[in-house]
């Protein structure tokens, strides 16, 4: 059994119309033994930017702290918030720094990117455990249920979903994928990010499907 599967867990991010969503399960296990049903893997970077860190739980915390430190230093030096595009590069270089003794994490990034005209465009990205970036236009997945997430997302996702519909799509994709994965599940959390800096967050042992956005 690979280290990437040791603790279990999955993350997915999707693009919508003027919004993005990022979601994960809440399980933490040691191989097949479940330890916690409240282990969050998605963390805020700025008001409009989130990062999901599925993989080895120890490195989830280590990298979270590492990114917090580096983003704080960036904010102080640049006297502005970091943009998703720049943060993705920061994630990539942080991981590649440890090319020959990597962190066992496959990060997923979701946020709203400032455009030259002053508006915001949805942004998602993912990397492998040594920081190879993947800028997708539709959705990105990672974790022990990644194959299942790909399958369901490919079937459910469509372009230009409004925030409410994107929430429903990402919730259904995540829930049905983790239900077929022994290492993921035990609750889920969804974040929907819109350009108005509003972050809608829904957390529960299971998200009530079909009920729309809970706040």
């Amino acid at each position, binding site marked *: 059994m690979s280290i990437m599967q040791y603790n279990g867990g999955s993350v997915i991010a999707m693009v919508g119309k003027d919004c993005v969503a990022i979601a994960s399960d809440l399980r933490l296990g040691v191989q097949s033994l*479940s*330890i916690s049903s409240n282990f969050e893997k998605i963390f805020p970077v700025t008001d409009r930017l989130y990062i999901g860190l599925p993989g080895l739980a*120890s490195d989830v915390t280590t990298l979270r702290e590492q990114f917090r430190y580096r983003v704080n230093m960036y904010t102080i030096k640049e006297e502005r918030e970091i943009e998703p595009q720049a943060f993705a590069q920061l994630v990539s270089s942080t991981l590649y720094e440890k090319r020959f003794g990597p962190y066992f994490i496959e990060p997923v990034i979701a946020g709203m990117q400032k455009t030259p005209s002053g508006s915001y465009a949805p942004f998602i990205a993912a990397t492998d455990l040594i920081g190879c970036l993947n800028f997708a236009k539709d959705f990105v997945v990672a974790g022990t249920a990644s194959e299942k997430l790909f399958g369901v997302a490919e079937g459910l996702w469509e372009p230009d979903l409004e925030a409410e519909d994107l929430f429903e799509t990402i919730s259904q994709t995540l829930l049905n994928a983790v239900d077929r994965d022994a290492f993921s599940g035990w609750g889920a959390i969804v974040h929907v990010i819109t350009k108005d800096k509003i972050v809608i967050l829904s957390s529960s042992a299971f998200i009530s499907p079909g009920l729309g956005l809970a706040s």
Partner: protein
Amino acid sequence: MEVSFAMTGKGYVLLAADTTAVHSIIKVKTDVDKIKELSPHLLMAYSGEPGDTVQFAEYVERNIRLYQIRHTYPLRPPSAASWIRRSLAESLRSRNPYSVNLLLGGYDTSTYTPHLYWMDYLGTLVEVPFAAHGYGSYFALSLLDRYHDPEATVEEGLAVLRRCLDEVSKRLVVSPGKYKVKIVDKDGIREVEL
């Protein structure tokens, strides 16, 4: 085999650890205290590689104490947990990592809340309502899923703990005989006899 349990209740955290020291097939001691008192409101149950355990526990104990001396107040449970986790995570990628698993129970005197953390030698840290390490976890976690109540009184908490220990004695082939049980709450730390 080493066994340790912990659970939260209404305003307290309960920790229990076996008291046996084993060398190969021989029980060398049966009165070992594997729960360290790190500060007035912080307990740490440790298990794992013999040698590493005591060495690491004492290293933690002294650093937590040093913080208290320097700042005149002790680290609160979440901060202590973060510091200990980082020590283990840095140790993991060093030449000679510590193999120590921990349960950290504390009472936050600023927010008046009990905290329990499950931590392993990899530096995995998670806050939980109840936890266990060792073979005991395969028996205790399912019992605690059923019987744990975060609003339980100390008496009720001890009764649930009793269930866990009884199950381990009944079903685990190499079950330890004796346990040490400690409680931390607003009044500090105390040991209880079961």
